[in-house]
């Protein structure tokens, strides 16, 4: 017979709860006697009566749980202890959570200090719920899309009346008061504030700032349509107000696709009144117009991030196309192209982030020429058959067409995995270009989940006597719930070239395609 006594210090449980544990553990095989009780004077007497003694019991207090087990073997004691531990630490079942309600009214009544709402219900009802939230004085992150533009304008005007902001519709990411909301990354706090009409654009910039040693005060989303002339930048203007008034913020970064012409001027005029240092990335915009207002321009997301960090450190920013040394670059380029067949000439981008896809297309457009897409830069470059790529092509797999009734590619690897394999079967494809986006809400191991597809695709091309290059960037930070270094490692292990940013990944993909076409040395 073996005996064990374990004292769990400073852990109170009520007697009924412990009785249940007692009963359920006593019935395990090999258990001769058991006592699980709080160390009160009375209970200690009972424990002695049952035949357990020892100094640990004597010195236990009424705040400690006393666990005594007598069993026929050590294994049985271990098993009993494991069960007791599990029962003591068992989380409450989801339905027992006390803060789940059926209506917004009830939630606010029970928790009147509520000051922020995240709304992700179907678009046709989203504005209605947003109005309720605004009327209760809340700021809103409006994740829902398919909200009619008239309703967007209505809720933003209402927000202005209450001096609040609506971030959205179709806003998937924000970091407010250092809390990541929606699909957002865990970043260091610091004096750089952002307002963005582009979800993964925001994520890329914020992650690059973090990894370069900077920190974020607020990352405010506006939704993709905010800077259209119809909506007039209502949320971006409010976001600017917020950052101007925020003591923590010293540097302001604005990110978007090119706004409507009227809105561009409105924003720039407003920016010129800001007391803070402002850097703007209106992806694909004419940089001269922006700098004519005395505002610093970032031409890529990466550049924008580095400009912000440089401003923070009081340094001059030096643009470089690549962080890797020229030698290393040359070496990798050779590696990636030497086994390709001559007819492999095309780049196929398979993206989970729309802005990252946009950025890639702009960069590729400058180097390899026209790029087809389901979100093309020009109407004539619209991809007709979305089941496969055509010429140089970048597909945003997070677009509505692909996500209706199916999970988003940031959450599920399935759609991208399929495309990786099918694009690999096209003998004219030289390089696949991918984004892996980490952070809250995203898949816990996207790199791992895509490994097999990448391996299979590469192996198929090798069988045919060619070589499939795969270039990727990982948008994330060391603090994200996923393990950033192992995401990178997972990709490199299967032969993916991982570049430190989306811009560099796109540039490198272009280099591969061009080299194989003998256009560059």
């Amino acid at each position, binding site marked *: 017979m073996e005996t064990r006594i374990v004292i769990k210090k400073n852990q109170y449980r009520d007697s009924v709860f412990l009785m249940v544990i007692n009963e359920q553990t006593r019935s395990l095989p090999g258990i001769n006697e058991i006592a699980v009780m709080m160390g009160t004077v009375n209970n200690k007497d009972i424990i002695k009566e049952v035949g357990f003694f020892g100094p640990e019991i004597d010195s236990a207090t009424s705040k400690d749980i006393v666990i005594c087990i007598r069993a026929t073997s050590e294994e049985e004691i271990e098993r009993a202890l494991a069960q007791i531990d599990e029962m003591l630490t068992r989380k409450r079942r989801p339905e027992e*959570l006390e803060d789940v309600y059926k209506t917004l009214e009830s939630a606010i009544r029970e928790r009147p200090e509520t000051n922020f709402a995240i709304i992700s219900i179907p678009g046709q009802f989203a504005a209605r719920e947003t109005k309720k939230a605004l009327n209760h004085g809340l700021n809103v992150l409006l994740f829902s899309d398919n909200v009619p533009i008239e309703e967007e304008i209505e809720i933003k005007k209402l927000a202005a009346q209450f*001096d609040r902001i609506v971030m959205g519709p179709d806003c998937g990411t924000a970091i407010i008061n250092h809390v990541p909301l929606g699909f957002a990354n865990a970043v260091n706090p610091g004096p750089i504030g952002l307002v963005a009409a582009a979800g993964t654009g925001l994520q890329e910039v914020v992650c690059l700032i973090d990894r370069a040693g900077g920190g974020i005060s607020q990352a405010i989303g506006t939704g993709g349509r905010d800077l259209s002339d119809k909506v007039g930048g209502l949320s971006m203007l409010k976001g600017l107000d917020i950052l101007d008034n925020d003591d923590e913020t010293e540097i302001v970064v604005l990110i978007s696709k090119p706004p409507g012409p009227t809105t561009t001027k409105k924003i720039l005029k407003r920016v010129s009144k800001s007391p803070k240092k402002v850097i703007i990335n209106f992806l694909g915009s004419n940089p001269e117009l922006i700098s004519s207002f005395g505002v610093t321009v970032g031409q890529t997301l990466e550049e924008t991030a580095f400009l912000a960090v440089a401003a923070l450190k009081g340094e001059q920013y030096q643009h470089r196309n690549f962080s890797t040394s020229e030698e290393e670059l040359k070496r990798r380029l050779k590696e990636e192209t030497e086994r390709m067949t001559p007819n492999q000439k095309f780049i196929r981008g398979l993206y989970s982030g729309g802005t990252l896809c946009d950025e890639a297309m702009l960069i590729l457009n400058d180097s390899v020429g026209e790029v087809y897409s389901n979100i093309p830069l020009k109407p004539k470059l619209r991809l007709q058959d979305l089941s496969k790529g055509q010429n140089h092509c970048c597909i945003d797999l997070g677009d509505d067409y692909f996500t209706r009734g199916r999970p988003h590619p940031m959450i599920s690897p399935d759609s991208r995995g399929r495309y990786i394999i099918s694009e690999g079967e096209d003998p004219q494809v030289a390089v696949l270009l991918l984004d892996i986006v980490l952070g809250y809400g995203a898949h816990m191991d996207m790199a791992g989940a895509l490994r097999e597809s990448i391996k299979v695709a590469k192996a198929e091309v090798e069988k045919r006597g060619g070589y499939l290059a795969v270039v990727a960037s990982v948008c994330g930070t060391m603090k994200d719930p996923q393990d950033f270094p192992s995401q990178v490692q997972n990709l490199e292990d299967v032969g993916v070239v991982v570049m430190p940013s989306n811009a560099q990944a796109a540039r490198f993909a272009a280099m591969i395609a061009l080299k194989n076409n003998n256009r560059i040395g």
Partner: protein
Amino acid sequence: MKKDRHLAERKKPCFGKDLVVVNIGIRPFYEDLKKLNVKVSHVDWEPPAGGDQEVTALLDKIL
């Protein structure tokens, strides 16, 4: 001058000191925030009028 006047109109911080969140819709957002020890409630939302937008619009005229 313009800048100064603007600065003089400083308002209370828009987001308050601590975020106290209510999540309406997709549950994982609520669960993620709970793991981060953010004060968050969840609303298990149902579409008004069983999803009928016309009736909802009419209802909103009256309510």
